């Protein structure tokens, strides 16, 4: 037993060590490792298969199965990985299949050294590895075919899963080569590095909108999500979560009424040493409907804890207080001397920008199924961060993380929510307490009130202009909960430029923009009160969702204060000088493309309508996709905003699947609009007030504007598209509202009341 854990490194990481090496592929975390069961289905191919790389196997029938180590939450990343492999391998698309990896460290991201999906990083960081894996397979198959045919390998051509020799008219299919058993060549890391990859002009698969491999399963009900897990003998857990988001403790549980209900097994009060949850109880029963009834019948008394009186207002007040202190926070950017420059500026503008709490609310509520089998803890849950979630599951079970196997499924939406691992805790502890496999399903109310939300943010931006209206200084304070600091993984934090210790760059990313401003500082200030009361998470696009709201609104305000066109001011600031060389020009070009496509400055608009622009990079400077938006809105005298059209242009360098990119960019832009206009959560008495889709209200079909997506592929390396278009839309809409009726709204979401109030002002 446990032969599968033999090869674990002795320093196998656990939660207490919390070591995490980003950017070092060779030393990826060794956490829970694939064991029996799924591995035969998911990971270990039958012996007759040809497995030129950990990333795929070719079966004797010629089918190529790519194992995707990234979470597929609707961005079709598994299909994208298969497409990159297929390009270099020379396989026909109809022969490609995908499967989802377990948490075996061999499937760790080649750049990140862990299994984590986010940041619009996947395509950019896996393009090279998948290309080389595909090419290695082609080389091995070609050499085997050459030996079989008795011709020189160099004269063979590979196309559509077939290897052909023109002169002799001989050819072999991939299936025939694999069946011959002669494809045995292996590649070292150096061999892989030495392979000469195709150039873009040789691509036949990259840049083609092949059908996504997961879509057929998603139209006939057969795609399996975590919530669809069925295990023999499995029972169900329903949660009772406390009225306070974080910090409550259970004083007593009276299960006398629950005990009288059919199917009830046990109420389990969580003892969560990972501190992911506080004050949770799981009612376990034979069916979920019975578990829910039992949960409702439990009488639980709580100590509300230190956050029980807090509200959104208190978090905002605290944020303002912290911002006002000169020694708050740490510097993320410090260029030149803004204070001196403000002193000599001809004009200074100052503004505060806020965003409210936002909830992920993926359509598949959080859930996890846990089963102890021998020494191994099996977890079934669609998850974006198998490496850390496995460690949380282990922490909840009190076992070493190397004994946890994470079974990946399709994710019914991720958006960053499934980077967190809270759902592991009730499933694991209920399974442990009952000795049965347990599936815990959150109600929508649990899901919304216990979200690791986008934090409430408060930003103060100050800009100084010289006598010619040129921006010479900009200071930017960002106050928020720190989502990534909560993970306890030092390598996900960044050093501060003032050497005051690490900061959470996932709260300020984007503020290090590509505009040229000689004197510029950005300060990251942790709102400890918000951090404790509303443990925050990564919500699609993360910090740029609020930093660009502030910056792109302020640039507009500067333009109006200096009598310039807001779009042309951006062009002026994107001069590509110094550290901004390259990126600034790409962003400028993207903005100009969006302006042209939208008819910016050329279309005559009726009264009450307006256009606004914004342009963004995201997430990090090093992983930017250049994105610009022109929003066209109509504003009613009541202040109600109708978005007539969003024109989005995005420079992604190289397109793998153009149709997939358009789908992602459109979805991201509509997320941006939904956050800009329709989504708002609030904290009251320590709890999130919104509990379901009647009070938390993402965009519906009737609110859909026209969305024009334009993708620029200029041959630079492929970048990500899941997120950047989220961040560009809110400031574009805000700026359009100003353009339409002269109302400047500085808080998200933009409500009719706020617009009306600003119109009067």
């Amino acid at each position, binding site marked *: 037993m446990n032969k599968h854990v033999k090869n674990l490194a002795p320093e196998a990481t656990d939660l207490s060590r919390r070591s995490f090496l980003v950017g070092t592929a060779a030393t990826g975390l060794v956490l829970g490792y694939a064991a029996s069961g799924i591995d035969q289905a998911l990971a270990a191919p039958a012996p007759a298969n040809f497995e030129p790389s950990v990333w795929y196997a070719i079966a004797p029938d010629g089918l190529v199965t790519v194992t995707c180590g990234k979470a597929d939450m609707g961005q079709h990343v598994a299909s994208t990985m298969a497409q990159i492999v297929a390009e270099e391998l020379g396989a026909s698309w109809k022969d490609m299949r995908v499967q989802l990896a377990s948490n075996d460290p061999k499937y760790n991201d080649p750049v990140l050294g862990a299994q984590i999906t986010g940041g619009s990083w996947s395509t950019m960081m896996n393009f090279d590895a998948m290309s080389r894996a595909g090419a290695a397979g082609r080389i091995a198959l070609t050499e085997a075919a050459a030996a079989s045919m008795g011709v020189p390998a160099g004269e063979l051509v590979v196309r559509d899963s077939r290897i052909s020799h023109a002169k002799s008219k001989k050819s072999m299919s991939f299936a025939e080569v694999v069946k011959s058993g002669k494809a045995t060549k292996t590649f070292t890391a150096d061999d892989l590095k030495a392979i000469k990859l195709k150039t873009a002009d040789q691509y036949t698969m990259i840049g083609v909108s092949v059908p996504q491999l997961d879509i057929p399963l998603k139209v006939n009900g057969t795609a399996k999500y975590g919530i669809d897990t069925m295990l023999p003998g499995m029972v169900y857990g329903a949660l009772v979560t406390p009225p306070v988001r974080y910090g409550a403790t259970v004083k007593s549980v009276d299960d006398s009424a629950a005990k009288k209900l059919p199917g009830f097994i046990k109420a389990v009060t969580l003892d969560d040493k990972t501190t992911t949850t506080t004050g949770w109880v799981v009612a376990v029963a034979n069916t979920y409907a019975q578990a829910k009834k039992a949960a409702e019948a439990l009488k639980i008394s709580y100590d509300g804890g230190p956050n029980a009186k807090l509200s959104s207002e208190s978090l905002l007040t605290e944020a303002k207080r912290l911002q006002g202190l000169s020694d708050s926070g740490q510097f993320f950017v410090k260029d030149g001397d803004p204070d001196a420059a403000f002193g000599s500026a001809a004009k200074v503008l100052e503004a505060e920008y806020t965003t409210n709490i936002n909830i992920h609310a993926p359509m*598949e509520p959080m859930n996890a199924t846990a089963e102890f089998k021998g020494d191994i803890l099996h977890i079934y849950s669609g998850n974006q961060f198998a490496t850390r979630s496995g460690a949380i599951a282990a922490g909840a079970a009190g076992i070493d993380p190397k004994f946890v196997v994470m079974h990946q499924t399709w994710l019914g939406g991720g958006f960053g929510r499934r980077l967190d691992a809270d759902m592991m805790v009730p499933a694991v502890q209920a399974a442990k307490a009952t000795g049965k496999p347990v599936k815990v399903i959150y109600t929508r109310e649990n899901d919304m009130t216990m979200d690791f939300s986008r934090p409430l943010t408060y930003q103060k931006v100050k800009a100084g202009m010289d006598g010619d209206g040129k921006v010479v200084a900009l200071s930017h304070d960002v106050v928020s909960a720190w989502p990534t600091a909560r993970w306890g993984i030092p390598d996900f934090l960044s050093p501060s430029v003032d050497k005051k210790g690490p900061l959470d760059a996932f709260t300020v990313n984007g503020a290090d923009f590509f505009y040229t401003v000689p004197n510029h500082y950005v300060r990251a200030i942790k709102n400890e009160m918000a951090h404790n009361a509303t443990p925050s998470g990564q919500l699609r696009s993360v910090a740029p969702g609020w930093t660009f709201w502030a910056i792109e609104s302020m640039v507009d305000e500067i333009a109006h204060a200096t009598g310039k066109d807001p779009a042309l001011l951006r062009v002026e600031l994107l001069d590509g000088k110094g550290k901004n060389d390259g990126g600034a020009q790409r962003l400028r070009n993207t903005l100009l493309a969006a302006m042209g496509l939208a008819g910016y400055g050329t279309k005559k608009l009726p009264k009450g309508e307006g256009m606004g622009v914004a342009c963004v990079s995201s997430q990090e400077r090093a992983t930017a996709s250049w994105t610009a938006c022109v929003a066209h809105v109509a504003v009613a005298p009541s202040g109600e905003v109708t978005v007539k059209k969003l024109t989005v242009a995005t420079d992604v360098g190289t397109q793998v699947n153009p149709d997939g990119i358009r789908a992602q960019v459109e979805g991201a832009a509509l997320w941006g609009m939904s956050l800009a206009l329709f989504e708002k959560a609030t904290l009251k008495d320590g709890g999130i007030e919104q509990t379901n889709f009647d009070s938390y209200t*993402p965009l519906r079909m009737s609110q859909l504007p026209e969305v024009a997506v334009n993708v620029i592929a200029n041959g630079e390396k492929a970048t990500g598209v899941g997120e950047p278009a989220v961040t560009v839309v809110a400031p574009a809409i805000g700026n359009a509202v100003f353009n339409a009726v002269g109302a400047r709204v500085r808080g998200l979401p933009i409500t009719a009341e706020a617009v009306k109030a600003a119109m009067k002002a």
Partner: protein
Amino acid sequence: MPNLNINGRNMSVEAANDTPLLWVIREQLQMTGTKFGCGAGLCGACTVHLNGEAVRSCQTSLADAVGKKITTIEGLSAKGDHPLQKAWVAEQVPQCGYCQSGQIMQAAALLSKNTNPTKEEVVAHMDGNLCRCMTYSRIQKAIMRAASDMRTASATGSERRAT
């Protein structure tokens, strides 16, 4: 033990009368294509047909479903080839896909009565179905494509009969 007629088959189930049909379908019958989204009839992920009408199975009790013909995504077509399912693939609608069973079932109820809906009719009929990936424009396109395919098929069918 109540009997359910589901996707053309009679199946006996064991659950209390007030159990939401959703959980009976998912757990007892192990048909997991019908999804749980909100438990309150606010999102449409659990949509099935009762006697051809689209209903939220999280708001329908087992007792209310007895004696009626229930259709789930698994039973919408014999081979997953309902015009809507084909259109959903052609337009590459799903992203995460979780809401799409409900979207397709909701749309199917519309097209079974009206194969020539206006855009406004589509929006009015579909507005209760949330898609967090925001695939709405593709959903609209796919419904229009399926409607057009159904009209063509029925026109071709009548021509055949005529000749």
